[in-house]
């Protein structure tokens, strides 16, 4: 029977506390966590609880159980708002949610929660040493949401075929995207693909809608060209625009 097993079975909470702290300091978070879990209820309300609960929360964090880490850090912060660890705890709580955020192409519930929590942290501790990291985490999460919306709009562009209304869906999705994320780093790509969708829709359009659609495409080209005159897409866009202008020209000569 190892000492750890003895401590686990022991009735004495002080032994568990001591052993747990040693294990925690040695970086054995999983083992420490099991001991802490046993004694947290008994220590509630006692002076040692502050340290204990902090270590307990942090052991979850180090075990990568971010759901529980976030929960316990938040509770720690609200129970001991005056603690010198409160600021760090709130930050780690928010960071735990950040860690839970999945890849951009899946549901972003956790991402939104993480942004909210990080923002709350920044509002509460505007002078925190963690501020730069918090800001960069928010930026990363924002980027994820942008990428999600961008990729969906781009998907509509990719899977569209000429018979259907999919290009319209793509245009609408890019419109919505540009309104919702005005400062996005995908702005250039979004404007280009919006033009691309409008161009393909117009060129392949049924006759009675063609003129109107070509005009819309021209409008999107101008918007793109004005915003990004030296884009990586310029050559391609230029070529499409030439074809577009030629198509529009036929209507002008007819009338």
């Amino acid at each position, binding site marked *: 029977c190892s000492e750890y097993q003895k401590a686990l079975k022991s009735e004495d909470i002080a032994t568990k506390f001591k052993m747990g702290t040693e294990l925690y300091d040695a970086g054995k978070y999983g083992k420490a966590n099991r001991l802490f879990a046993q004694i947290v209820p008994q220590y509630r309300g006692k002076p040692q609880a502050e340290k204990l609960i902090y270590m307990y929360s942090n052991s979850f964090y180090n075990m990568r159980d971010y759901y529980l880490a976030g929960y316990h850090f938040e509770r720690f912060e609200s129970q001991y708002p005056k603690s010198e660890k409160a600021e760090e705890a709130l930050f780690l709580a928010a960071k735990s949610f950040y860690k839970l955020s999945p890849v951009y192409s*899946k549901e972003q519930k956790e991402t939104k929660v993480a942004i909210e929590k990080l923002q709350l942290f920044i509002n509460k501790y505007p002078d925190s040493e963690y501020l730069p990291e918090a800001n960069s985490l928010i930026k990363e999460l924002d980027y994820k949401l942008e990428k999600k919306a961008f990729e969906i709009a781009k998907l509509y562009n990719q899977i569209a*075929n000429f018979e259907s*209304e999919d290009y319209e869906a793509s*245009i*609408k999705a890019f419109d919505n995207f540009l309104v919702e994320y005005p400062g996005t780093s995908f702005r250039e790509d979004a404007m280009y693909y919006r033009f691309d969708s409008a161009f393909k829709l117009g060129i392949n359009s049924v006759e009675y809608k063609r003129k109107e659609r070509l005009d819309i495409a021209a409008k999107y080209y101008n918007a793109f060209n004005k915003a990004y005159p030296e884009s990586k897409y310029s050559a391609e866009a230029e070529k499409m625009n030439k074809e577009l202008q030629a198509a529009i020209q036929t209507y002008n000569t007819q009338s």
Partner: protein
Amino acid sequence: QENPFNSGKKYTIAEIIVTGDTNFSETTIVTYSGLRKGEVIAIPGERISEALKKLWSSNLFSNIDIYLTKTIDDQAYLEISLEDLPELNTVVINGVKKGKKESLIKDNKLTKGAKVTENLITTTKNYLTNKYRKEGFYNTKVTVTTTPVIDSIEKSRVNMVVNIEKNDKVKIKDIDFIGNEKLSDKKLKKAMKNTKEKNLLRFLKRSKYVKASYKEDLVSVVDLYKENGYRDARVISDSIYNNQDGTLSIQVKVEEGDKYTFGKIAFVGNTVFTDQQLSSILGLREGDTYNGVELKKRIADNSRPDARDITNLYQDQGYLFSTINPVEVSADGNVIDMEIRISEGKPAYFNNVTVVGNDKTNDRVIYRELRTRPGQLYSKTAVVRTVRELGQLGFFDAQQLSPNFKNANPNDGTLDMEYSVVEKGSSQIELQGGYGGGGFIGTLGLSFNNFAIKDIFKKEAYKPVPTGDGQSLALRLQASRFYQTYSFSFTEPWLGGERPIQFSTSLSHTKQFLYNPRTRDADKSKRFNITGVTVGLAKRLTSPDDYFTLSQAVSFQHYDLQNYNTGLFTFGNGYSNNLSYTVGLSRNNTYTDPIYPTGGSSFGVTAKFSVPYSLLNDVDYAALKDERAGLNPADPDDLARMGVIDQERYKWLEFYKVKFKGDWYTNVVANKLIIKSGIEFGFLGAYNNDRGIIPFERFFVGGDGLGNYSLDGRESIAMRGYPNQSLSSTDGGTIYNKFSLELRYPITLGAQAKIYALGFMEGGNSFDNFRDYNPFNLKRSAGLGLRIFMPAFGLLGIDFGHGFDPVPGDNVKNGWETHFIIGQQF
């Protein structure tokens, strides 16, 4: 700003004592109250009432009071006085059967230790009274009495006695209508769905009096009049008498009023549809009997979401915000002129379309299936179809899929759509071991239905396998002493991610050994290997309608025999190749749950054929056929020559095979009882009759239909009520057909497990050549079964089938057979 309520004088709490009959410790109660010694509070004030509230909300005490016993300067001495609520000790229920008691105790939470409040007693009493009244015991009396347990040591407890006097069921002797001339008593009584006269012959719905349903039935009576044009009909009075024999009599006085007819029906406000279009949907004309119920139904039928009514007509053209109101504009005599006032509103376009809940599946796998996209016109049909098709992907729980309308804005004509999905486990593991075929058979099968092959080298994607791209991957290993099978298959539903072209490929390898009678083990020197590769593409079509799929596949199989002399092959050392092309056209619009479709149909026709080699090579098959016919299999030299001839015939297999299969699902009782009717047909033929029909690719009818598919291209056709493959000759049939009828009833369709029971009747048979073929010469069977689908295990089932006809070579009917079904659907 100071709250006047808090303006009481400030005191410091010097002491809190607890009095009264309680088993809780003083500190517990004080802590729970939230008041603390040394705290400065206002008296009277918020803190005191908060403490009272908290104590009450614990549901543990009664008679709670907080007293200010004395004050010394600004020191307050408080007393909390309370009593523990008594706990329930024993319950005795009189007047019902023993079996019922437990469920009553459970329903009312009368468990030992429950806190006995006034509320508990009253709700129990009401619950029981109502319960039995609903069952027709109108004179039910319930009394609940409690007696304290005399025990000074333990906490206060009570014993409860519940007396239920159900008395006799109250039946209705007769229902009498007064004032009805136009509609007979009989018709009116029929309209009363739950209130029936006593009648010995009717035993599905017994006569009973339940007040609530009686009131509903009176409304139905009036509705019946309304349906027949008596728009002013009403119930003037109704009275209920107690008869001597304990029954009731009901007397209903009605006033029928006059019969009305429809006058002119005008449409107002319609710009999208013409009056003619609308009135053809409305289906009511001037002179028709006035029928308010039908009118309502034609405008908006709430009982069927896909009904052909005016509301849906507008809804499918994007007019989400349209409202349609029938108004009676004039009633001249008994003729009512109607105006159908339509406010069309703006057509609604989808703005944002989102999906939530996909914590495994990647966005694009879902978004590419959506039929409602940003900027598109709203259509109810498209929404319904999207939900259906998301369900069919098999990644989400079909019962929990829901379209949520958000931010509907009639002024801009926009709405947001959010599809809420719940992921379900779509991977299956099969691990089996058992005895069969002369020895131990072990099977390891893995199938992942939402796989992401691009993530297979990413360590962090293994949770526990990479998922989310909608691909399916299956691996299967099966081994016994006599054979080994390895197979691998992979499917990508959107090849290249841009078009819905499904790509699938599979590889398989099978090794079989002959039995060595001396060592009773596999004889490794006598083996038969089959190696196969298949690559296929399937494309969704847009015409004739977009439920069609066209599929094509090329497959190659190599059979390699070494010293493998059986009845099946005359050449023991040799090989055979099967290169074939399959083309299939299928249509599937079953919905919603792929495990338990409640409607729609699926059918498919496939043709599989090889290159007509005999046209291209110069072998004289007719001569070979003649020579073979003249040989004697008993003579070893002749047998060897037959082997050589057969090797020539089967070097490259030459054949064509046509199959048809159709299933129809009909909903008998809304989403409950489903009839599945099916028909199947298959034919295997040869281009060159001298070369003959190949011994591979044949049909084996009978049994559970589970078979070693990859063995030699053979197809096992399920036919319950008969042993496996018993309805075909040993070499297999070349033509078969099958008809089946199955009635399905769902027991549960939850996410954890879907269970349904079924009853079936089927008939089918196989034939060795077209001359013998007779579609009416069927082997018939009928039986019952059960299916259980659990996400981790797939489909499991058992069927008991009774074969009414003898199997070939027998002359008594086959009788009962039990079939176990794993992972396959009938």
